[in-house]
């Protein structure tokens, strides 16, 4: 009897232990499940070599054949588009399911459901800037278009087919580590992804920072620090280009427009820590046949984005009757975003035009539900938002919307004492059908169809570079842009003075956005710089215009002739720092008394090439960082106000032309410091820093280029990658940013041949060889040759020849 009792007690204890191991406790996942050989992490180890293979899947109408090439890039062939997009959704989910779903959680402000309360601030930010609402408004527009509806629906079905298989079999490791399961994929997730990218690319502006600087420093100094136009412009549209169209009139300046000298309060931007970093950007260019060895165009593109695992891009070929396109797309979006077909190639860089404005809100005294706009009291739209917090209590808040957009911060989301409401108007928040532009680009046969495709495009505005087999090259900065009066949107505005119909629909017409076809210089290019010269009839306001990379690219292309693909590879991997080339010769003479220092000597001899082994590069950038922080000490963020440093190219102008600039004086010291003092102090600090950190002299260790897993798990990330380059350099590889893909498309012999490489791998599974298979070659500036098959037979032949 006692034995039996003991047996029952032991059984109960054993069951309790098993249950304990089987459930998620807080953020700790089920250990039992995670360690299980058949269900846990062991089963995520994928020992398949990366090799060609063929699979077939049943689509809604028939079969789709998928040929994976030796880089695990799928080439999908189907008899109709429903099967094609079904298969695209399926293979994408197979490699990237967790990533796709994770981004939709992030965009809709639902990360707390997966990782708990630590994501609450980020979730609140994403909901308060309105990404979820924007996606919800885009969805009916996407689905109202029969072509896009068919595409998105088939794509969604394919993803869900894979999800149901994965739930029965192997889930990606991240689900196991975070202890949750994928939900059914919905078309809104694709809309969310596009809005998430719009935030990544246009979710920045300087309204609050500029207003603070204006109030602190006054107009004269402000204009030197933050000019609208760089002193050495090299815009996307060549300066000599004429704009032969009749421009719409600029809106009239309101009677009480932003008086930036008025004593506005200091606004701290509480969301600054979530904003995309400065210095991200992209390059693209196309060279006409007059400058290439083959006599046919070459098109190049390398978008610079955050370096993440799984990689931001997924590469594939899509082929069905009437369509054959190759390129990369964002996991979760149907079609191809950057790529080429048998007739044309296109690429994108981010347009730096400011499409986000902030307005102060005046509430009705004694009635919190109303605000003033257009001379009358209007009712706020109130949206109740609930955050489901894993392992915690749900959080609810009400977000108010004005006629122009969300009140992003108010008394509930502000660190400011006087709780001023600020509402935001942002073109990314429109319900739009941007997918249609890509749908049409995928099928475009000539430059007319390319222009037509772009008409559907709204936000994030891009510089769409173009080349075709007919020897045309072109570039167009396209998206929706407000027509503004001068300086509109540069500072905080008053909602009471805003013209709501202007904000709602007064845009630069589609055929008047900056554009050039076959310019005389034989090439087109963009690198996030200002798009146009002063002869463009509209006021242009940027939030972060580049002015180094663009000049390096243009000087390289202008000097080159008989250009080959190898030359283009060199340019995409170019590590020359124009920033250093222009700044150092101005800086070194001021510190001549430090000539004997080893660091001075290395800098004086430096050729401005930022290879990963360079020590001079580390010295220069550290020195510059100290210089900026000491020179612009007035512009450091305080508890009450946020600021932004001037651009590096503006700083160089100031060193050159305003050596007695008042800001060089260091706040809080008795002495009145000069430029020389600032340069000496910052240089000495640099020397001291490297004495303390001798292991960071090599540029690779100084800048620490890393590719981070999206969940921030270090074990799935890579650090200290052996690659040169930095911000404002063509090979723009800084610590966390870099070329997210490098594409070169050659039209030699009237054929289309692509070359590419990206920092990651096709698979999102950290247990697969294809997770990071491209990283080393990417860091070395190597490329693989794209296999763009004409048809299924050619693909099968290629498969057989490699087997």
């Amino acid at each position, binding site marked *: *009897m006692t*034995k*039996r009792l*003991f*047996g*029952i007690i*032991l*059984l109960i*204890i*054993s*069951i309790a*232990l*098993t249950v304990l*191991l*089987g459930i998620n406790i807080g953020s*700790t996942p089920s250990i*039992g*499940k*995670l*360690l*299980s*050989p*058949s*269900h*846990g*992490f*062991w*089963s*995520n*180890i994928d*020992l398949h070599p990366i090799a060609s293979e063929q699979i077939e899947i049943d689509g809604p109408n028939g079969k789709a054949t998928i040929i994976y090439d030796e880089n695990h890039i799928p080439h999908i062939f189907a008899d109709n588009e429903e099967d094609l997009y079904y298969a695209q959704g399926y293979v994408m989910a197979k490699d990237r399911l967790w990533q796709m779903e994770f981004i939709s959680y992030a965009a809709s402000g639902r990360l707390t459901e997966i990782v708990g309360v630590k994501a609450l601030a980020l979730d609140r930010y994403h909901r308060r800037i309105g990404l979820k609402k924007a996606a919800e408004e885009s969805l009916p527009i996407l689905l109202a278009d029969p072509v896009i509806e068919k595409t998105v629906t088939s794509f969604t079905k394919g993803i869900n087919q894979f999800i149901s298989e994965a739930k029965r079999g192997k889930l990606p*490791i991240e689900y196991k*580590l975070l202890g949750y399961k994928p939900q059914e994929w919905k078309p809104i997730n694709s809309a969310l992804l596009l809005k998430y990218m719009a935030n990544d690319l246009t979710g920045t502006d300087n309204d609050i920072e500029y207003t603070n600087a204006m109030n602190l420093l006054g107009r004269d100094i402000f204009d030197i620090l933050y000019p609208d136009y760089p002193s050495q412009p090299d815009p996307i549209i060549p300066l000599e280009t004429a704009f032969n169209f009749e421009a719409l009139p600029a809106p009239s300046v309101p009677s009480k427009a932003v008086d930036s000298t008025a004593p506005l309060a200091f606004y701290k931007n509480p969301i600054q820590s979530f904003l995309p970093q400065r210095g991200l950007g992209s390059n693209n260019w196309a060279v006409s046949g007059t400058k290439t060895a083959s006599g046919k165009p070459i098109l190049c593109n390398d978008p610079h984005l955050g370096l993440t695992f799984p990689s931001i891009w997924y590469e594939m070929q899509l082929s069905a009757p009437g369509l054959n396109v190759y390129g990369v797309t964002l996991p979760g979006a149907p079609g191809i975003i950057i790529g080429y077909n048998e007739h044309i190639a296109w690429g994108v860089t981010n347009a730096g035009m400011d499409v986000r404005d902030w307005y102060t809100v005046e509430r009705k005294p004694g009635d919190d539900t109303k605000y003033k706009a257009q001379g009358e009291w209007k009712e706020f739209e109130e949206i109740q938002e609930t955050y489901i917090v894993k392992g915690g209590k749900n959080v609810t808040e009400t977000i108010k919307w004005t006629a122009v957009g969300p009140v992003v911060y108010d008394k509930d989301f502000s660190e400011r004492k006087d709780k001023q409401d600020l509402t935001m108007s942002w073109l990314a928040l429109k319900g739009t059908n941007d997918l249609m532009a890509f749908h049409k680009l995928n099928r475009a046969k000539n430059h007319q169809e390319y222009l037509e495709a772009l008409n559907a495009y709204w936000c994030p505005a891009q510089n769409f570079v173009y080349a075709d087999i007919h020897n045309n090259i072109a570039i167009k900065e396209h998206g929706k842009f407000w027509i503004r009066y001068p300086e509109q949107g540069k500072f905080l505005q008053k909602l009471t003075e805003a013209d709501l119909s202007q904000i709602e629909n007064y845009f630069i017409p589609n055929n008047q956005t900056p554009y050039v076809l076959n310019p005389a210089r034989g090439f087109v290019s963009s690198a996030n710089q200002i798009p146009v010269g002063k002869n463009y009839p509209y006021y242009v306001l940027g939030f972060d215009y580049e002015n180094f990379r663009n000049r390096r690219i243009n000087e390289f292309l202008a000097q080159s002739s008989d250009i080959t693909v190898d030359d283009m590879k060199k340019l995409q991997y170019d590590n020359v720092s124009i920033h250093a080339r222009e700044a150092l010769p101005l800086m070194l003479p001021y510190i001549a008394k430090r000539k004997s220092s080893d660091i001075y000597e290395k800098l004086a001899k430096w050729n401005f090439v930022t290879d990963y082994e360079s020590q001079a590069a580390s010295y220069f950038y550290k020195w510059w960082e100290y210089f900026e922080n000491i020179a612009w000490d007035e512009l450091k963020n305080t508890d009450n106000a946020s600021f932004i440093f001037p651009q590096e190219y503006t700083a160089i102008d100031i060193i050159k032309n305003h050596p007695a600039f008042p800001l060089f004086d260091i706040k809080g010291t008795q002495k009145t410091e000069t430029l020389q003092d600032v340069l000496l102090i910052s240089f000495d600090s640099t020397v001291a820093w490297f004495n303390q950190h001798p292991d960071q002299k090599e540029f690779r260790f100084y800048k620490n280029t890393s590719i981070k897993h999206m969940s921030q*798990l*270090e*074990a*799935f990330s890579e650090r200290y990658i052996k690659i040169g380059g930095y911000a404002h350099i063509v090979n723009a590889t800084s610590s966390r940013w870099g070329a997210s893909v490098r594409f070169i498309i050659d039209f030699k012999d009237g054929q289309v041949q692509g070359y590419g490489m990206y920092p990651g791998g096709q698979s999102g599974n*950290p*247990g697969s060889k294809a997770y990071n298979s491209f990283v080393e070659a990417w860091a070395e500036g190597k490329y693989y040759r794209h296999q763009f098959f004409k048809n299924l037979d050619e693909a099968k032949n290629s498969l057989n020849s490699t087997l």
Partner: protein
Amino acid sequence: MKPVTFAIQIILIALISWGLSYILPWWIFTVICFISGLIAYQSGFFSFLTGFIGVGLYYFTYSSILTRGDNFSFANKIGEILGSSMNAQIGGFTLLCVGAVLFGLLGGFFAWSGTLIASKEPSNRLRSRRGRNKSKGLKLDLKRYQ
């Protein structure tokens, strides 16, 4: 202990745990061990051993097969992630051993509890046989002291 049935039982636990884990939840091996304990021939401690060794064997062998060729690189990463919360460095092979022991212990406990619960059931063929053996021994002892 009966060496032959002991070995057969271990192998059966390992094989069935492995086979059923494909279609049933991760904890299915605990049920197998419990049933095995109920019907099997071993006494207390050896019953525990059948579960412990059987499940450990399944875990160790199968996981080793899954990670062959990858040289524990993925298991090392998981070890790093699991260890980071405890500020410890857990290697992939350690993780394999920890998993095998943990799963083995569970298997052992379930097998043992099965045996204990079955021990007083008169209808149980195995228990009654063991009971006979015991009474024989008692008789011998009695003879000695008579």
